[in-house]
């Protein structure tokens, strides 16, 4: 890399976007100051101070924009920032876990896109290792180019020249077309692995949320309607709760996953979606940390399921990396088998130990006690006809807690073969987690005094996830069975079955 090496620079809209954010913050400060009755004689100095800050922000952002260069070399991406402190960041293509294209509102107005490069590390889960803002078409071309280099780095093969060379419109924007010849289908031409309709996304946004949240939303809606007809006015609080806890998350999910598309080329998967802000994630299947088939209560009642895969850099605002929104369960499982067969585990499930009933019973006792105290406190108020509604709600909640206890005992199970650990968790909202032993960072077996007496315990499996790190807590099983998890992880490392190169 020398002075003649071609490089890229961020689109100027990045400067505008940064200045706009600071402007908004400054405007807020000014409004607060004026609202608090700032004396008139101080106002000019205050305005001068604010202008000075703004000028500094503008100059600093222009310097950063001017002095930050992106080199896309044969083996690595080099980000060079030569401001007051020189910073040089090198990212080898083979270390990349995923590449995202994000387009927020400003990007859509200015016709740009933000390309984020994510590594498989817990340091980079909440923020990309590096990102670059380019014109939309340039970003797409660069994404394809980086994807092909990732593909080449992992497979040692060469992809096609499918017209992905960046147009040489700017002397600084130069990426050499390097992949001529052989046949790899470009991601955007690939057939979607599963057809997701707008109706599927609509259903996903409602029944894909945790059942307690959906149930709460429905209860609030019923309460609002009943009060409207009984009192001729809508109660504000339940309406606010309904909007904040149910409507907004559902609308947000719908907007986020609208136009969902999942394609696969070779060992690379690309997921794209979005109504206003679009986002496209590309990642290698070897970077998947674990797979989860999620079945919230209403999903299960409709015979549907959701497929999620943990890949660093692909979490959305809700922290849910999605491979398939809610679809019929056989379609989801078919996709799972086609896409990630190495995560399948067909071993017989280990059922929970009887001592788990003590833990579940304890939780139920706590929930029922809280419910009893709240009911006692509310019933002491003069509720009139609302008292009947209260008792109906109490009966529903008692049934809900009782069924929760039954499902919590029945659902939790465990299975493992020599490669995969399968942990089923959840009561109303069942999750089946498929974890490669090679991706487990460490495991802890815990036991309460009662569990110890019966040789039982619970296992907490710690892994890297798209939200930092994640832990899966198993149900109550024989401690000797749970100890096999750590033993298998160690055995695979010791006898060489674990090979870090497989996951690079």
């Amino acid at each position, binding site marked *: 890399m020398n002075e003649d090496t071609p490089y890229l620079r961020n689109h100027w809209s990045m400067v505008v976007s940064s200045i706009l954010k600071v402007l908004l913050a400054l405007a807020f400060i000014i409004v607060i100051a004026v609202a608090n009755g700032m004396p008139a004689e101080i106002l000019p100095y205050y305005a001068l101070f604010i202008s000075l800050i703004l000028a500094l922000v503008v100059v600093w952002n222009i310097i950063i924009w001017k002095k930050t260069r992106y080199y896309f070399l044969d083996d690595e991406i080099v980000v060079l920032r030569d401001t007051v402190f020189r910073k040089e960041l090198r990212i080898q293509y083979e270390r990349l876990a995923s590449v995202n294209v994000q387009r927020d509102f400003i990007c859509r107005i200015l016709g740009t896109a933000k390309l984020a490069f994510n590594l498989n590390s817990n340091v980079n889960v909440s923020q990309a290792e590096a990102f670059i803002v380019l014109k939309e078409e340039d970003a797409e071309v660069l994404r394809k180019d980086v994807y092909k280099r990732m593909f080449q780095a992992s497979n040692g093969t060469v992809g096609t020249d499918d017209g992905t060379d960046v147009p040489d419109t700017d002397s600084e924007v130069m990426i050499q077309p390097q992949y001529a010849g052989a046949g790899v289908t470009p991601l955007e031409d690939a057939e979607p692995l599963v057809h997701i309709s707008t109706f599927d996304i609509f259903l996903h946004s409602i029944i894909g949320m945790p059942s307690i949240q959906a149930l709460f939303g429905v209860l609030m809606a019923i309460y609002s309607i009943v009060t409207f007809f009984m009192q001729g006015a809508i109660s504000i609080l339940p309406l606010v709760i309904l909007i904040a806890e149910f409507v907004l998350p559902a609308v947000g999910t719908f907007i986020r996953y609208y136009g969902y598309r999942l394609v696969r080329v070779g060992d690379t998967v690309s997921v794209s979606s979005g109504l206003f802000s679009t986002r496209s994630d590309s990642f290698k299947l070897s970077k998947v940390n674990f797979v989860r088939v999620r079945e919230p209560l209403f999903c299960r009642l409709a015979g549907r399921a959701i497929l999620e895969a943990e890949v660093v850099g692909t979490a959305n605002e809700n922290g849910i990396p999605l491979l398939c929104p809610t679809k019929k369960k056989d379609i989801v499982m078919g996709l799972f088998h086609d896409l990630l067969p190495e995560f399948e585990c067909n071993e017989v499930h280990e059922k929970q130990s009887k001592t788990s009933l003590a833990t579940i019973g304890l939780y139920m006792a706590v929930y029922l006690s809280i419910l009893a105290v709240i009911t006692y406190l509310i019933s002491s108020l003069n509720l009139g006809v609302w008292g009947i509604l209260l008792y109906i709600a109490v009966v529903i909640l008692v049934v809900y807690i009782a069924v929760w206890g039954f499902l919590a005992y029945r659902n939790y199970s465990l299975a493992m073969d020599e490669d995969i650990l399968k942990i089923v968790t959840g009561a109303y909202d069942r999750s089946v987690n498929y974890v490669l032993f090679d991706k487990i*960072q*460490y*495991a802890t077996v*815990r036991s309460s005094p009662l569990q110890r007496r019966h040789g039982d315990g619970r296992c907490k499996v710690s*892994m890297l996830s798209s939200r930092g790190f994640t832990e899966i807590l198993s149900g109550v099983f024989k401690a000797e069975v749970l100890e096999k998890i750590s033993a298998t992880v160690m055995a695979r490392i010791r006898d060489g079955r*674990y090979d870090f190169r497989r996951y690079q």
Partner: protein
Amino acid sequence: MVEENGQTVPDIQELSDFRTLNPLSKNAMYLGNLIVLAIPVAITVALGLYLKSYTDFRFLAMLALAAIVVVYELVSPPIFYKYYRYRMDDDCIEVRSGVIFRAHTLVPVERIHQVEVKKGPILRKYGLATVTMTTAGGTVSLEYLDEPIAEEIAQHLNEKIIKMLKARQ
């Protein structure tokens, strides 16, 4: 065994069998717990002074809570000491710990990214230290170790990590 600053430091091979903590660790725990105890006790006293009644339901509830915390903090150090075990061999670290709930954690050395030796003022007073190992899935600590042992473990792990990274390159 190696002599270091008048203290006996075991070879790394000697750590492959489960070891208990130094009895001084109980004193460090008591001292640390005293600071924790000060908070509920202060809240209870303040609440009593504010309510000006020692028979008020709220005061009695706070007193009961503070009493539970005091009993736990006083009883827990010897139990923690009694059941705490750790061992380390060439490729893994095992820790058994807990007072009411007991845990057995096994960390493969291969998964460790970073090793840190922490010595707060209380631990320093008793010549103790904590080794914190960071993996991509979270952190695991070896607590209340003798300072030379902690340093020895950290050094050994760091050497292993560097060797592993070099081999991968």
